[in-house]
């Protein structure tokens, strides 16, 4: 039952009455607290501008990540560097598994081409040299819907996938008609579609120092990341 000192108001609405109880102290206190917090928070961030806004927070997050993960950026590999691991059976097998999971949707189970081009002929849209294939897989081709796999796959995995794709060459599985420029075997392009990158510097993979040398900026900076996505 109610306390003795509770006062019933004379209000009576369809039999409903009301007590004249004061506001609970903790309720009033917490209400004031939230009001003070609201004023303080709004003042700190919006009026005084002392706190970081969301875009500043974002820039900081990106800067921190750039430093923290610098060593894991995709290296820029020369043809010979790619060739050095591309023939390895274990690497190709690993690449086959990745291909099945990631690439087959667009390029077909055997690389015969579906949404993307046939990879089993000797015609190449973005260059068939080992370094070019590695780079195309890593950075993707935004305009064609080829994802930049460096955002998803680790460098080792991209190496493996490149090895597998290079191993498909001239297996000539029946599928999509050849697209791009026919290149002679073994990295002697009949007609280079673009100036060969021919990187002079030999970047040691997994060293941050080598990264700035990468011409198309494969580093996951925001700009490149977006470009790769789109």
């Amino acid at each position, binding site marked *: 039952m*109610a306390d003795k000192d509770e006062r*019933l*108001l*004379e209000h*009576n*609405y*369809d*039999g*409903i*009455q*009301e*007590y*004249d*109880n*004061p*506001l*609970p102290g903790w*309720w009033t206190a*917490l*209400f004031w607290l*939230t*009001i003070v*917090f*609201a004023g303080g*928070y*709004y003042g700190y*961030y*919006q009026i005084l501008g002392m706190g970081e806004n*969301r875009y500043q927070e*974002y820039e900081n*997050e*990106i800067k921190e*990540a750039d430093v923290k*993960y610098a060593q*894991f950026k995709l290296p820029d590999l020369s043809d010979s560097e790619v060739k050095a691991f591309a023939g390895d059976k274990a690497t190709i097998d690993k690449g086959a598994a990745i291909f099945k999971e990631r690439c087959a949707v667009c390029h077909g189970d055997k690389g015969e*081409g579906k*949404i993307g081009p046939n990879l089993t002929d000797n015609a190449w849209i*973005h260059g068939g040299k080992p370094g070019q294939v590695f780079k195309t897989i890593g*950075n*993707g081709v*935004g*305009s*064609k*819907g080829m994802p*930049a796999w460096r*955002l*998803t796959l*680790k460098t080792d995995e991209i190496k493996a996938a490149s090895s597998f794709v290079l191993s498909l060459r001239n297996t000539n599985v029946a599928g*999509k008609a050849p697209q791009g420029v026919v290149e002679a075997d073994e990295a002697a392009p009949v007609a280079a579609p673009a100036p060969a990158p021919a990187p002079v510097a030999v970047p040691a993979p997994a060293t941050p120092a080598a990264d700035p040398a990468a011409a198309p*900026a494969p580093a*996951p900076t*925001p*700009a*490149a*990341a*977006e*470009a*790769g*996505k*789109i």
Partner: protein
Amino acid sequence: MSNSAVVTDPAATGSSSPPGSRLERFVYDDAVVRAFAAATVVWAIVGMLVGLIIASQLAFPVLNVGFLHFGRLRPLHTNAVIFAFAGNAIFTGVYYSSQRLLKARMFSDKISWFHFWGWQAIIVSAALTLPFGITTGKEYAELEWPIDIAIAVVWVAFAINLFGTIYKRRERHLYVAIWFYISCIIAVAVLHIFNSLEVPAGPLKSYSLYAGLQDAFMQWWYGHNAVAFFLTTPFLGLMYYFMPKAADRPVFSYKLSILHFWSLVFIYMWAGPHHLHYTALPEWASTLGMVFSVMLWMPSWGGMINGLLTLRGAWNKVTDDPVLKFFVAGVTFYGMSTFEGPMLSIKAVNSLSHYTDWTIAHVHSGALGWNGFISFGMLYWLAPRLFQTKLHSKKLAELHFWLGTVGILLYIIPMYTAGVTQGLMWRAFDETGRLQYPDFVETVTKLMPMYYLRIVGGTLFFAGVLLAAYNLLKTWQARPAVYADVVGEAPALDPAWTDDHAVEGGFFSYGWHRVWERKSLLFIVLTALAIISASLFEILPTFLIKSNIPTIASVKPYSPLELAGRQIYIAEGCYNCHSQMVRPFRAETERYGEYSKPGEFVYDHPFQWGSRRIGPDLHRVGGKYPSLWHVRHMEAPATVTKDSIMPPFPWLLTDELDWPYVQKNVDVMAMLGVPYGENVLEGKAEAVAHIQAKEIAETIEKDGGPKGLEGKKIIALIAYLQRLGTDIQQKPEAKAAVKGVPAGPVTQAETHAAAPGGAL
């Protein structure tokens, strides 16, 4: 009426009548209350059944049968549960309690029945339009313009009916329940009218007057306050009447009623922007939304305290009375939800919870726990009174309560788990700084066990509702052959009565509020002022301050074909599962691309930012995949993305685009101020669209895709998707080419030229 028996409402005895005044007798209109009660039960079954179906579609995508897929059915579920079930429950309670609290029959029987049938017709028209893709594409405001007008008319009728009853009342003061009803009527009218301003583009199609950021702002001002003034304040009003009645106890604190009512009404209106944290909404608005949401905590809890403490001395009754059990649990869920709401509005929490099932859990603890339980508690209390017999089975009502409670828990706990899980997966990076779960679908398949459990919870709750329907039906069957008139007695208000003790005591004894309570017009005006002034403080700056939306020169209007594709996107309800808003977090820019800027949406009538990511964000999807990919993906998503739960849209490949409509869309957009040039106006849009369609179809064919897609819907949709989010990639030079032709179709070639950025 006069032929039937007369009973005096036993509850009417409390009315304080000054000695010597003339007692008036009047008959309460319970017939319309019975009708609303029956509609409440019917729509509860329909709305929740659709809810169960769409929950099952997420768990078992094979259940997306043809056009009856999740995207089209989800709005039917939300509209049916909010406006049909909760709406009819509100009207049941308001019509029953207002007559008794005001000591007067409703103002007009004709308006009462117009209100009843009008509202049911609106709901039926919703059911006949939403599944067919007739929608405005704004959440909880999907109904098209003729229905919008009907809603406004019926709502005004409701207002006239209640305010008229207030005018002819025999109770000098307005009780707190009536205050809450008044706030509901005014706020919903204002929200509905201003959010639904739209320009018709046909008998069943319209486009929002607002675009992009401003449309988003209005939509969530509306959306949030629909929760506030449709699902909260009227239900608080119901609580203030039915809870003390059922418990037979006085309300805990009159002062608390006053303070929490006014603070709730004023503060709620500001809080909408918390639905748009980290979007392109300006930061000041977002921060205001957050701090006002935090301030809402205690005003909301004021209602909970007044409800729960009213039960002091009556807790023994709760064990024995299913009605009180529903009320206690309902108010407790209200307290949980209104603590959770302010918490979710805190930006840091929201950055995790937003777009996840956490929101779904939050909503359902409120909707099932608070709205559902208050409604059913009320129905069980009303049934014997309305049908003038005993409740068929108290035991079944008890069973309903327990089924419902366990059902809610089995619904919300898996959804909380799913929300936090998915939120954390989206932002997880591995040790090399790459997304731990780069494939969005991984973060969906992970939730499947939770989705199965949710179906169990939902089924239990639904079973409870069926029990209620059975129990109430049986009670109705036991009604007397002729209902006895329920007669009220009260003295008429004495017009000569003077405010001789106008304000008693000091400020803190609230005598001044007592004065407001007897001046009903003043009370209504003050409530309207609180609601409107709070709204204007935010709305005006959002529309007037130019710096809110820095313009981006390269952002151009959609081409006619893209616009037609956008309409398909809206009609299929894509926004129910896909957002178009990349937030400025590294986890999002790595996954989707550059974060979204306010200037990118200036031609988006309506905005399509979305509120839940059952699928990935699409703002930067333009150019991400080849057009052929989209063809295959729309035809059968799971063949392209393994384990995808997206419904298939094969008819888009076979259905002809509504070509004559292409021009109409462009014309309406031009009317709305989108700067379309002469080359697409005056009937030229269709030809322009055909050129772009041909290019896309040829690209698809060249890539080895199906032939003959040129005139089909899929091409328009692909045109739209390929355009999304690409404008900011346009180089100023590239722009110059299209400069003289602001509305020129962005051709496939241009899109591609624009898209690569600097990738290779």
